[in-house]
């Protein structure tokens, strides 16, 4: 991903495929450059009595890393994804049922959390779960020169002094979730969020994904 000036934003090539798995109720794979994540959604399904909530659905998110067992880092990423999904899903329409979202990391080449968020949104759409808005994730990094880079690669992330991931909703363009790492000034954080909002406008031309499942009714 190139370093950008104040007016231009460029993202790596991104792609998405829906309904590629036959067992889950919804599935999607999202690719940003070399980073690739596969998401699967099951639900609304039966829930254990210990986990059921009387007026809402119980959402569970599991992130499986490429190698090894999930650890503390995956748990914190799961919490970010879960809070974003809970803010945009209409959970009150399915009380006492469970929604399970499983994200499998196929390859991590930078901006993993934003790729997970995008794959999650695509899978939830594919499963036909009722949502109040769509959301997308964007990662921003500040390198040692003070330049702001969107959608950084793994090498750029390592050399950066600050990293921010935002989840933005499609209706009001407001921030649903933000995760930050490193040190940055207030001015830099405002600049990064402005750049992220501008880049999210491009993500929201998702209409062509629906033409993948364009089936002629009647």
């Amino acid at each position: 991903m190139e370093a950008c000036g104040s007016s231009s934003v460029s993202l790596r090539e991104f792609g998405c495929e829906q309904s590629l798995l036959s067992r889950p109720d919804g599935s999607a794979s999202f690719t940003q450059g070399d980073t690739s994540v596969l998401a699967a959604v099951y639900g609304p399904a039966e829930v254990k009595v210990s986990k059921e909530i009387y007026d809402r659905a119980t959402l569970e998110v599991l992130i499986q890393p490429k190698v090894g067992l999930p650890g503390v880092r995956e748990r914190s990423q799961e919490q970010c994804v879960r809070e974003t999904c809970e803010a945009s899903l209409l959970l009150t329409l399915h009380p006492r049922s469970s929604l399970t979202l499983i994200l499998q990391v196929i390859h991590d080449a930078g901006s993993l959390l934003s790729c997970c968020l995008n794959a999650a949104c695509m899978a939830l759409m594919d499963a036909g779960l009722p949502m109040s808005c769509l959301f997308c994730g964007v990662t921003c990094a500040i390198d040692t020169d003070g330049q702001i880079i969107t959608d950084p690669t793994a090498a750029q992330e390592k050399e950066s002094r600050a990293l921010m991931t935002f989840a933005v909703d499609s209706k009001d363009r407001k921030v649903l979730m933000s995760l930050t790492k490193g040190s940055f000034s207030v001015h830099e954080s405002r600049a990064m969020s402005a750049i992220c909002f501008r880049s999210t406008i491009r993500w929201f031309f998702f209409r062509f994904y629906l033409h993948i499942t364009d089936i002629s009714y009647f």
Partner: protein
Amino acid sequence: IKFQHSCFFLPKVGEVLLPGDEFCFQTDDTISLTDPGRPEKVVCGPGLRRSGDRLLVCKSGVLRHKQPNMFWMDSQQRRYVPAKGETVIGIVTVKSGDVFKVDFGGSEQASLSYLAFEGRPRGTVGDLVFSQFIIANKDMEPELVCMDSSGRANGMGVFGGGGLLFIVSLGLVRRLLAPHSEVLADLQQLFPCELVLGMNGRLWVRSSSIQQTLVIANLLQSCDTMTAQQRQQLFRRVAQGAL
């Protein structure tokens, strides 16, 4: 004085829409004294929610419209959510007390009372039941009955010897149940068979031989994602090579 109203959503019927999209319905204040008063009532179907005078989309799909004022989202789904009045195929899992517990593929099992049959309830654990929902909302346990409002079975009840149960997407079942369905017309030209369609995505088929039953089941499962041309090509190939 003319009665005018401007609808912002009519041009969008037939378009693909995403969750979060909104429509606005505005009427001018002038009302004609000679025209009959038309109440602006809009019926929201699946995938749409009402908030004030706006309609919010909550599922991605194609917007459909039926005269005079019904709107709904045509979307693809595999998971069934029970709705009152729909007929489904369920599997009996528990026979206890005076109630059957039936698994229809939803988030909880439905109950089917022994008294909800036309004659004697005949069924054991593992049988297939074709019934309709009489109670199906998000707050209560769903309930099924095997008779209509006048007490007749009307095709519902326990069934199943000699056939095959398989699962397809909900969209395919709706297309098969539509009036003048093209898929059903193509299927009728193949070989005679008995078909039970459950709106929960479960189909049951029985034909004169096991091979024909399997052929029909495989055809229906694979024509889910095909265009009309591809499907007709496939059916023609099977009809020519049919054993």
